[in-house]
């Protein structure tokens, strides 16, 4: 028979052992030898605080009552860990870059460092966790009572309460000692982590030892155990689908959202690679923890007397078989489960309370604008110590008030669903940039309220908080608000009912409110940082050029981080800026970095507020962002202006190049023109000079003299005509021609032109249709007639056929009057058609035509001056010219 004193001695020895281990770990960490403390094995084992006394003892009871359903509590975390690539990896990365201190800090920091959200999550966590701490105290005292009973003593309630109180005090001392020892910038507690890792080994070993004893020591091997299972009351496994799915979901959610789990999973993690190992090692740990649960339950039900509490089979079964050593081991396993959970949960809650409630309150209570005086460090540490005491006291009070009865046993799942209300805000914050603080606040508040109404308050029992009539008829007779049948949907499993409605309404509120409201700039910056954490390695630059002086910042940092740490940071920064000493330039980058360092100690919202005091609110405001946007727009406009200018210059350059080419071409033309004109002038001049020489120098017969004088006369006429043409062309080209606009009939103009051309019927037959020619035109009739004369005489000169004909056709094309002159000659070859309107261009020998080749050129210049045109008309039987008389003038008179 085991003596009670021995049990107490073993317990105290175990606790002392844990203290020593934690102390040794702290010392090693202080010496900088932390490599093995950050190993994957320690990380995986520290995750085992998920397995509390509720799972150590309670799983067996759960299996005895509901068969394999207890597995769901382990399957959820298994899914989360083997799916680490989705979420856990991202959370750990965010936790490291943002220096998160708790799950409240995650939510607060993500949603614009909102202080209100931090408080909300903290309150939710306290409400959800306090009963859980009470449950741990209960399990320890119950297991102690078992040993007391077996040694012949029967404990009164007062004794149980006393034991619970001593356990609570011991845990408070441990947590204060190792949890608030240093205000670490990374919020990592090597002593505690190592102690809970050791406890994790102890509880796994204890449960495996009991399991092995039960299967091989009592049942007689695996086969007989299986037979025993199939022969028990739980022979057929009939899970309820809704509970099965709901429990897997809620345990997965709780694994991520429980403050203590977030503490070990994210905050205490120092190396992302350890997560990869934990992704398989932790599921393996859970597997081993649950491997022998069903055999212990079945064998316990088989061997233990009717009415024995199945929650305690792990201890009572070895005890009943006389295996006292094994029973003590099992007791230590349960003790380890309870204490490790309480220590980490208390620490996580205390951090949240001090960072999100006490320190901000303390800062607000001070006169605004005054710089921080007094030792903030002391305030933070003291507030944490007090919080630890208060939280454990709350747990103890809850334990006393609830009477330690069966009501507590259900609190595990109630607590899970409660903390899971943070999940939508967490998932939304990490994956959806659109989630904002209004949405997160609404979601958490709605979820919290629905959970409290449908599960938390009813968990105290009928008539405890909610009366029987409210259960039956709803509050104030509103039937659709009944706690177990929201919206009138009756008959759901109460647990599934609470999970479904709280999570559904929570998520819906988050999404709807986020979509309908607008986040502030800081939220948007933080949102981008969280969602795209893999893209940004550095932190957000949320501080603009600040008014803070380096010395003020150093003074403040020293108060929070401690002198040595703060000086180290400032010195490193000064060095990286190339300065000596402790005072770097206050750049936005530096302030951002300092804020993250501080937030590692006091939380993001508080750090932000403290820096805000010193920098006199020089943080980014909407106006700043707008100013930045304006500046950017200006720069963009300027650059587009530059672009336009450069395009314009390109165009100008191109135009200049073209003009230059034209000028060059004109210059060549001018040269050609001059040489042409001198040639044209010299030919008649030569003959005039020779004949006048003959007349002067020699005796010439009368007949010959007359002939020579005639030649001189003809040549002079030719010269005169040439000079007239040249003058005419010069006037026309310069555009200074005087137009004598008058109205007349086209037929008159043509008649005059035919007459003036001096063409006789035997030279050229002119065919006309007088009916078409009765068109009134308003133009310079003299000039138009000049064009017609030119075209008619050209036809007479060049049409080299036996019976030359010229058809003059007047038409209306597109509202314009055109006059076509078509002869029946050889026409103009294709290659020459573009040249005939040029000056001095003649297709044949100059002498024959007796002109200088200016006729068509003058025609074109005249028609251009009149606003019309003259073009060569190809495709006729001979040469064809089309004169286009300007439309507006022609039409105006019709």
């Amino acid at each position, binding site marked *: 028979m085991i003596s009670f004193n021995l049990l107490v001695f073993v317990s105290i020895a175990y606790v002392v052992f844990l203290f020593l281990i934690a102390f040794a770990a702290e010392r090693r960490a202080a010496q900088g030898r932390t490599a093995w403390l950050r190993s994957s094995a320690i990380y995986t084992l520290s995750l085992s605080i998920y397995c509390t006394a509720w799972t150590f003892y309670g799983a067996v009871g759960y299996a005895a009552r509901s068969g394999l359903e207890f597995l769901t509590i382990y399957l959820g975390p298994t*899914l989360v860990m083997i799916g680490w690539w989705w979420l856990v990896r991202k959370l750990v990365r965010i936790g490291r870059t943002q220096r998160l201190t708790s799950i409240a800090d995650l939510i607060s920091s993500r949603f614009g460092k909102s202080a209100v959200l931090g408080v909300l999550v903290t309150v939710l966590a306290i409400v959800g966790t306090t009963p859980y701490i009470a449950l741990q105290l209960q399990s320890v005292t119950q297991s102690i009572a078992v040993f007391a009973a077996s040694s012949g003593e029967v404990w009164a309630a007062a004794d149980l309460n006393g034991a619970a109180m001593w356990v609570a005090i011991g845990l408070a001392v441990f947590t204060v000692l190792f949890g608030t020892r240093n205000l670490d910038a990374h919020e990592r507690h090597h002593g505690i982590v190592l102690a809970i890792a050791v406890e994790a080994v102890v509880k796994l070993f204890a449960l495996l030892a009991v399991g092995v004893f039960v299967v091989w020591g009592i049942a007689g091997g695996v086969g007989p155990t299986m037979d025993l299972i199939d022969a028990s009351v739980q022979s057929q*496994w009939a899970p309820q*689908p809704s509970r099965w799915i709901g429990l897997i979901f809620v345990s997965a959610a709780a694994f991520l959202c429980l403050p203590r789990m977030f503490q070990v999973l994210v905050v205490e993690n120092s190396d992302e690679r350890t997560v990869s190992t934990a992704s*398989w090692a932790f599921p393996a740990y859970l597997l081993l923890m649950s491997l022998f649960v069903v055999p212990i339950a079945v064998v316990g039900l088989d061997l233990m007397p009717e009415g024995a509490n199945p929650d305690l089979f792990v201890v009572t079964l070895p005890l009943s078989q006389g295996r006292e050593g094994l029973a003590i081991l099992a007791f230590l396993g349960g003790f380890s489960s309870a204490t490790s959970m309480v220590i980490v949960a208390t620490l996580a809650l205390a951090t949240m309370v001090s960072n999100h409630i006490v320190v901000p309150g303390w800062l607000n209570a001070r006169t605004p604008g005054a710089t921080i005086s007094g030792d903030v460090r002391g305030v933070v540490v003291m507030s944490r110590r007090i919080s630890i005491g208060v939280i454990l006291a709350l747990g103890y009070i809850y334990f006393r008030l609830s009477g330690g009865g069966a009501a507590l046993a259900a609190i595990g799942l109630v607590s899970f669903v409660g903390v899971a209300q943070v999940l939508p805000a967490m998932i939304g914050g990490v994956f959806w940039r659109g989630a904002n603080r209004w949405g997160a606040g609404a979601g958490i508040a709605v979820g919290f309220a629905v959970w409290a109404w449908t599960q938390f308050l009813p968990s105290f029992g009928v008539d405890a908080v909610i009366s029987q009539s409210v259960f039956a008829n709803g509050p104030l007779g509103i039937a659709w608000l009944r706690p177990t049948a929201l919206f009138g949907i009756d008959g759901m499993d109460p647990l599934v009912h609470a999970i479904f409605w709280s999570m559904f309404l929570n998520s819906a509120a988050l999404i709807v409110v986020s979509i309908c409201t607008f986040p502030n700039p800081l939220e948007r910056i933080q949102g981008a940082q969280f969602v795209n954490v893999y893209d940004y390695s550095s932190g957000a630059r949320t501080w603009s050029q600040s008014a803070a002086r380096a010395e003020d910042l150093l003074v403040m940092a020293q108060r929070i981080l401690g002198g040595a740490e703060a000086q180290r940071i400032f010195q490193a920064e000064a060095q990286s800026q190339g300065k000596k000493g402790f005072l770097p330039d206050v750049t936005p980058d530096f302030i951002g970095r300092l804020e993250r360092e501080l937030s590692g100690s006091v939380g993001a919202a508080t750090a932000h507020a403290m820096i805000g005091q010193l920098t006199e609110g020089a943080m980014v405001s909407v106006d700043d962002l707008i100013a930045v946007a304006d500046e950017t727009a200006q720069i963009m406009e300027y650059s587009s202006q530059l672009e336009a200018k450069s395009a314009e210059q390109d165009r100008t350059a191109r135009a200049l190049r073209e003009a230059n080419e034209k000028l060059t071409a004109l210059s060549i033309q001018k040269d050609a023109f001059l040489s042409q004109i001198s040639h044209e002038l010299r030919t008649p001049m030569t003959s005039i000079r020779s004949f006048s020489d003959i007349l002067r120098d020699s005796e010439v017969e009368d007949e010959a003299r007359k002939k020579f004088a005639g030649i001189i006369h003809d040549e002079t006429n030719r010269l005169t005509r040439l000079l007239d043409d040249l003058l005419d062309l010069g006037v026309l080209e310069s555009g200074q021609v005087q137009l004598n606009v008058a109205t007349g009939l086209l037929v008159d103009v043509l008649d005059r032109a035919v007459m003036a051309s001096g063409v006789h019927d035997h030279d050229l037959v002119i065919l006309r249709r007088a009916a078409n020619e009765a068109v009134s035109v308003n133009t310079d009739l003299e000039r138009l007639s000049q064009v017609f004369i030119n075209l008619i005489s050209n036809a007479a000169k060049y049409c080299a056929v036996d019976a030359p004909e010229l058809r003059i056709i007047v038409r209306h094309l597109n509202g314009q009057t055109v006059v076509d002159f078509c002869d029946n000659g050889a026409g103009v070859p294709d290659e020459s058609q573009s040249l005939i309107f040029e000056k001095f261009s003649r297709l044949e020998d100059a002498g024959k035509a007796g002109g200088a080749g200016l006729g068509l050129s003058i025609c074109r210049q005249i028609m251009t001056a009149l606003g019309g045109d003259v073009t060569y008309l190809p495709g006729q039987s001979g040469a064809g010219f089309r004169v286009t008389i300007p439309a507006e003038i022609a039409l105006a008179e019709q």
Partner: protein
Amino acid sequence: MAGYGRIEFLERGSYRQRRLRDAARMLPVFAAVLMLLPLMWPRDTPDQSLTSSGILYMFGLWIICVFVAFVLSFLLRSEPNEKDEHQGKTP
């Protein structure tokens, strides 16, 4: 994400790493589906869906999950670069 000048086609090594990440993402999905399978087991007579078969099935599934997670974590651990993480969604 546009604007990073992401690469459309990867070389063999990086491609393999991407597929391993896909595997790591898909593992919990498959595991979850298989965990729901026993809900569909027949339960017409008392000798169907015995708790012992449930234990064998669930723990067998669990061991396979742990093993696959172990292999994946080992393979992903040898991943050399984290820098191209923002291209994680590239097919």
